[in-house]
């Protein structure tokens, strides 16, 4: 059976070049990068090189603005908690959005219990925030604005440059969770003018368990992981050398190949066209244009998402859904709900997230496989016959 992986916003397949780059650091070069002897020195050198490659991808002014973490979630936690701790005497108000990833939302919820006030900005039907609402939300107690660059579920891209402009005017730090944007969109941190930015390795064809946070020079942030003097005294713990090397390699490849990522848009639009010309009552979730080139989130009205993805899985196609049943909490997608998508269409949402390994043949296979599944499930749905 053909296998088609369309869940690249969940994780990507690691590139062969990345694995090759990592292998020596899993085997012969095993020294602790903090050791000054011959076993440690090459590890240190590799970390320095990877830091420069990540800084280059992000367009950072210096490699010292990059701190390696265990992944995107830790980067988000560090950015938000770190700023809140550092600016405690200045204020306690955070502004974020209703559609952030759980790594940001649940960090904010935790901080609310610790006495922070959090504003969750609403979004329009395409998932874009309202800049006036953001301006109005800022008070003299606001210490951080944290807004994602692009949404993981629907791919909508937020007006990051306008947001950071507003933040700068008010003298408030701006953090962006760019985990889905890095490697897919060409940008430089100095252009988007972010003070802090989170990224992850495994979303850009790199390894899992590694990520990074960009901290603009001079940004006040309190260390969250205490221990040794690693990562310029910002994040303690013996460095994950193979992971860091892998992230560096993935970053280097991503910088070179971002134009290829944009080409994925053609495949994605071909898939969308193929689906909508064969199946009725399909709605697109997310912005029609301001959207990640690889992301297609659509609702198959009258159906529940898990029943669709299980059927697709049986045919070798891997996708994900915003339905309550697969969330682990039995809550439907908070992103679609915040966009005002009704309950039925939220339950019936399916995310196709493409990657560099997908082909036109993959798309044709999905276009051909989906209609009978949707038809069969709809004959089973009590909502469909009311139509």
């Amino acid at each position, binding site marked *: 059976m053909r296998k088609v992986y369309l869940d690249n916003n969940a994780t990507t397949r690691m590139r062969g070049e990345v694995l090759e780059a990592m292998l020596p650091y899993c085997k012969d070069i095993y020294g602790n990068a903090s050791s000054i002897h011959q076993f440690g020195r090459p590890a240190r050198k590799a970390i320095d090189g990877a830091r420069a490659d990540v800084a280059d991808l992000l367009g950072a002014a210096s490699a010292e603005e990059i701190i390696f973490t265990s992944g995107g979630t830790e980067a988000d936690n560090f950015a938000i908690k770190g700023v809140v701790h550092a600016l405690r005497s200045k204020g306690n108000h955070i502004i974020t959005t209703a559609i952030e990833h759980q790594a940001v939302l649940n960090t904010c919820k935790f901080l609310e219990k610790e006495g922070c006030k959090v504003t969750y900005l609403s979004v329009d039907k395409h998932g874009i925030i309202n800049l006036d609402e953001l301006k109005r939300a800022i008070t003299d107690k606001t210490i951080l604005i944290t807004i994602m660059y692009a949404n993981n579920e629907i791919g909508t891209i937020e007006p990051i440059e306008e947001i950071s402009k507003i933040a700068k005017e008010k003298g408030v730090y701006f953090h962006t969770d760019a985990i889905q944007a890095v490697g897919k969109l060409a940008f430089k941190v100095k252009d988007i003018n972010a003070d802090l930015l989170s990224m992850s390795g495994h979303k850009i064809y790199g390894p899992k368990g590694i990520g990074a946070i960009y901290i603009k020079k001079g940004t006040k942030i309190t260390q969250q992981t205490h221990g040794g003097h690693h990562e310029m005294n910002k994040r303690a713990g013996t460095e994950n050398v193979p992971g860091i090397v892998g992230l560096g390699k993935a970053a280097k490849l991503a910088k070179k190949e971002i134009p290829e990522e944009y080409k994925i848009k053609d495949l994605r639009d071909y898939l969308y066209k193929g689906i909508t010309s064969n199946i009725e009552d399909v709605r697109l979730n997310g912005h029609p244009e301001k959207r990640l080139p690889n992301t297609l989130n659509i609702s198959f009205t*009258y*159906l*529940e998402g*898990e*029943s669709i*993805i*299980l059927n697709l*899985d*049986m045919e070798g196609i891997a996708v994900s859904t915003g*339905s*309550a*049943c*697969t969330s*682990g909490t*039995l809550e*439907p997608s908070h992103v679609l709900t915040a966009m005002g998508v*009704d*309950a*039925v269409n939220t*339950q019936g949402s399916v995310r196709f997230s493409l990657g560099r390994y997908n082909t036109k043949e993959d798309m044709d296979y999905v276009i051909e496989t989906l209609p009978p599944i949707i038809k069969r499930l709809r*004959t*089973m*749905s*009590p*909502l469909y*016959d009311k139509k």
Partner: protein
Amino acid sequence: MEGQYSEKVMEHFRDPHNVGEIPDASGIGNVGNPVCGDIMRLYIKVDDKEVITDAKFKTFGCGAAIATSSMVTDLVKGRTIDEALRISNMAVAEALGGLPKIKMHCSVLAEEALRSAINDYMDKKKKKSAG
């Protein structure tokens, strides 16, 4: 999640039994709502000896919701109303070789759909004898 479904659940999900409607149903049960993610409609046909001769369903929901609908309609066929009332959600789940903990509510929904259909049948019968 889906990875934890038993073989029996997957069997009923892949090829559900008793999908459809009974145009002259003796009772129809409607339970659930789209917010929680599951809606079940269960039809029963009851003969004059109070035996359920046929059962069908239509379900909007996840794999477990479809499998429990399929199983509960299998279980009630040939049972009397009294016997059917004793079919619990646990019996449905057990017949499916168990359900993931987070999906147990689907078996509860199946039991509720069955009760709702039986209540509808009883109401109709009452109205008929009163009329």
